[in-house]
């Protein structure tokens, strides 16, 4: 559980610094806020996000994983990164 918390903190910090530039429509980022629905991330932002995940958590994001189920909210990201990290440990 501690690890999940660490992942979430890192992800939130990155999203806040990179995408939420204090814009008027995004006062708070909830766990399930959809980046797509709320226009938080743009298409090049997704690349930045993926590069950040790969570097920070030492994982490889495959083509097929570039889908909203994995990337479109803080909670989806935390779940995705946790699964990938667990997989990496087992490999």
């Amino acid at each position, binding site marked *: 559980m501690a690890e999940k918390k660490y992942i979430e903190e890192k992800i939130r910090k990155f999203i806040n610094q990179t995408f939420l*530039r204090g814009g008027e429509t995004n006062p708070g980022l909830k766990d399930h806020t959809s980046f797509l629905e709320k*226009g938080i991330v*743009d298409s090049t932002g*997704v690349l930045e996000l993926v590069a950040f995940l790969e570097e920070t958590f030492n994982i490889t994001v495959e083509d097929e994983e570039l889908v909203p189920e994995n990337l479109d909210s803080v909670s989806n990201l935390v779940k995705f990164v946790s699964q990938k990290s667990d997989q990496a440990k087992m490999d």
Partner: protein
Amino acid sequence: MLVGDFLKNNAQLFPKKTAIIFGRRKLTYEEMDVSANRLANALISYGIKRDDRVGVFLDNSVEAVVAIFAILKANATFVVINPTTKFQKLGYILNNCRMSGLIADWDKFDVVSPIPETAPSLKFVIFSGKKKDSAEIDPNRFLDYEELLKSSVPKPPPLKCIDQDLATIIYTSGTTGVPKGVMMTHLNVISACTSITTYLENTSSDIILDVLPLSFDYGLYQVLMAFKVGGTIVLEKTFLYPFEIIKTIIREKVTGFPGVPTIFALLLQLDHLKDYDFTHLRYITNTAAALPVSHVKKLREVFPHTKIYLMYGLTECKRVSYLPPDEVDRRPDSVGRGMPNEEVYIENEQGERVKPGEMGELVVRGSNVMRGYWELPEETDKLLKPGKYPGEKVLYTGDLFRMDEEGYLYFVARKDDIIKTRGEKVSPKEIENVLYRLNEVLEAAVMGVPDPILGEAIKAVVVLQKGANITEEQVRRFCAQNLEDFMIPKLVEFQEFLPKTETGKIKKIGLISKGE
């Protein structure tokens, strides 16, 4: 013929055919037509008349498409506004064209609700989406989309327009930093749609994927053209998760995929595209900025059965040229030739047509050329000049070109300093104007710098007031509060001073690579 007929005709010819797919929602031509009729009747009952302007301030959605056709059915002119537009610019556009009504999303209530105070022409705002519960909402001014649809009749309202009336005003970046409204008549829009669907050989069996915003004319025309030929539009809110788009192309058996270089650059980063079956994908189109030759090559490897059309245009005439797919190898650096039913030629500064191979300004002649800029006669006269016959106007594009013996065009340079980023045109002046509103800023210069994904990335070079202190992040944050998302500078650089010309103008050329 009017633009609204695209929907009406298909609702009569193929009522049960799928007109639009948006996520899990699929709507037939009949359903779209009935919704548009209902909304049109509601607009009329709230005072919308022929020639009034009505804004569409919505994300790509079924409601946005219904709104566009409803406005046309109400004999009014639609104005699609980029959904990331901030309060000040939204107010400017509303007042500039004296908009009578606006259709927005409940999500945008906080941005939109103060607007009527500053825009006296605005009679009402219709909100769609999940309704906001608030006692303070004025029921005479703020209306709910779903409730209006339910309470209005489905009978089509009487048509009063002719094809000389304005179908749409499209706001575009101007060199002065103030947006200009490009006036397009029904005839202009229909002519452009006819020319484009002719060379793309569109038919009612086409299924066109649209990931581009409807506020961008390239995104808007995908819907109009799909409806013109009775095809199906697969509308996405945006291009965000590359593999999701691939899945959509396969699932919906998409036949046409329009994009801009940024989108193709992102897609081509996927490693396993060759493993998928794209045989149904009949064509890909690229415009807004040149697609690098290496990307054209890669696209053909990934999509061997797909025709690739490279195109060029500007909002003022929608599209200028297309390169037929079988010419791509022979003339990889050409933007193609004029569209069907359109003439293009090149003039020198003396106003004479130049010989093949000589450089000059590109001129466009055709029914697709705009009626002018909304209430900007002087700006209009700079671009629209007398043509071959009395009363005729042709478009001087401001772009320098060469043409070969066979009529193929080669882009040389732009006459102004407009930046093209992610396929969108951005006026450096508009961003500089925002930067100058920061108290800490003494001088600012904005320019485009080459970027492999964006085409050009926006760079701001800033000189601070003596003793002032502000970070790069704070500058970007201020831009995000005041500009559409695609206009936020990717790079912010601080300098002690900016180089000037003898007349005191900032010299930008030297700043592009400085400090990198």
